């Protein structure tokens, strides 16, 4: 057991949460990330789906890494990813149909999520299956927490709810004349919020600041 969760492996899991965050540091996977953050529930489902797909595609590609010819590796990777995404999509359609409708094309777009290709190329092609699996979970979570934080802010300020529960209404904030900020629901705010998260993260971790 101690070997399975050695400190090196634990680092693989925790590094992507902050120092090597896929969104704010590696700049991967922003494509499908931002459009699903209007409400927390779809954002959470999306984050879970991405964790599942990154973990298992890393595992499969890493197990196959010695047999995949280098020249056609991209198409092999895409086929593995696409097959996993089809599984996730069918699962969502069967069990959480309303969320799957809200996510619409963005479940399919997990295929071209750069986190997947990025991690497969940078990690799974050169490491053992178990490490790759952990790396996949770590990167999926690093992606997921940003998604959920952005969705939390947008839902609270934009619709006055948290996970569909009308918090502001129950607190009686509206009777003081407060109104929801419609701009929060509009797409641009997702970008600006991620910009602010990057700002906060880099003010705290000076080593991440880009050189002039």
């Amino acid at each position, binding site marked *: 057991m101690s070997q399975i969760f050695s400190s090196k492996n634990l680092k693989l899991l925790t590094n992507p949460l902050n120092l090597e965050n896929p969104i704010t540091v590696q700049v991967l996977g922003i494509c499908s990330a931002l459009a699903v953050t209007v409400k927390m529930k779809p954002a959470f489902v999306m984050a879970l789906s991405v964790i599942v797909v990154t973990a298992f595609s890393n595992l499969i590609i890493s197990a196959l890494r010695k047999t995949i010819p280098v020249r056609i590796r991209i198409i092999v990777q895409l086929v593995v990813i696409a097959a996993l995404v089809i599984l996730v999509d069918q699962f969502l359609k069967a069990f959480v149909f309303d969320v799957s409708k809200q996510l619409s094309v963005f479940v399919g777009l997990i*295929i071209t999520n750069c986190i997947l290709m990025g991690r497969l190329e940078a990690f799974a092609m050169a490491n053992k299956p178990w490490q790759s699996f952990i790396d996949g979970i770590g990167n999926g979570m690093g992606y997921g927490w940003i998604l959920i934080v952005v969705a939390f802010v947008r839902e609270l300020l934009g619709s006055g709810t948290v996970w569909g529960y009308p918090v502001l209404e129950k607190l009686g904030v509206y009777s003081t004349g407060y109104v929801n900020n419609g701009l929060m629901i509009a*797409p641009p705010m997702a*970008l600006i919020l991620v910009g602010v998260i990057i*700002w906060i993260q*880099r003010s705290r971790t000076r080593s991440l*600041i880009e050189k002039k």
Partner: protein
Amino acid sequence: MENHINLFISSVFVNNMIFAYFLGMCSYLAVSKTVKTAVGLGIAVIFVMVITIPVNYLLEKFLLVEGALSWISPKLANVDLSFLSFIIFIAVIAAIVQLVEMVVERYSPSLYNALGIFLPLIAVNCAVLGGALFMQQREFSNVWESVTFSFGSGLGWAIAIISLAAVREKIRYSNIPAPLRGLGITFILVGLMAMAFMGFMGFKL
């Protein structure tokens, strides 16, 4: 005709791939440092989208949707292969990108050199697969509509990346708070540009 113009305008401005759906963000942020490379990538994306989306439309119509196979034999009228659409679309995109790369290399080496590494990277550009999935969702009535839609979406993406590159070239000379430098300010810039593009919402001819 009017229908096509409307579709075109809406896919360039109102439903802009970047500002309304955030598709193709990875390469959008990575390759927008100078205008010259941005133009190259923009043209490559238009090129690939105009080819792949109509091909995917035809495949969808004659292979994937329920009853699509009835042109082979009436026995297959009940077959519904639409769950395979992701894998078919991405395979078509990857194959066509490879094909386009080879054709461009053979017939126009200068264009090939200008596009450089961007061509193969387009296979994993979310905007291309996203365009195909939106095409599937909107159920166009004929293939020409999908051509108009793909050209409009590609052009919208190109306009977005070229304008961001132009802004980023200028902003290099301004004094930005250190933690915001680079990626942070770029995100906020794209947000502000997206806000400007929201002005087109509901725009119709």
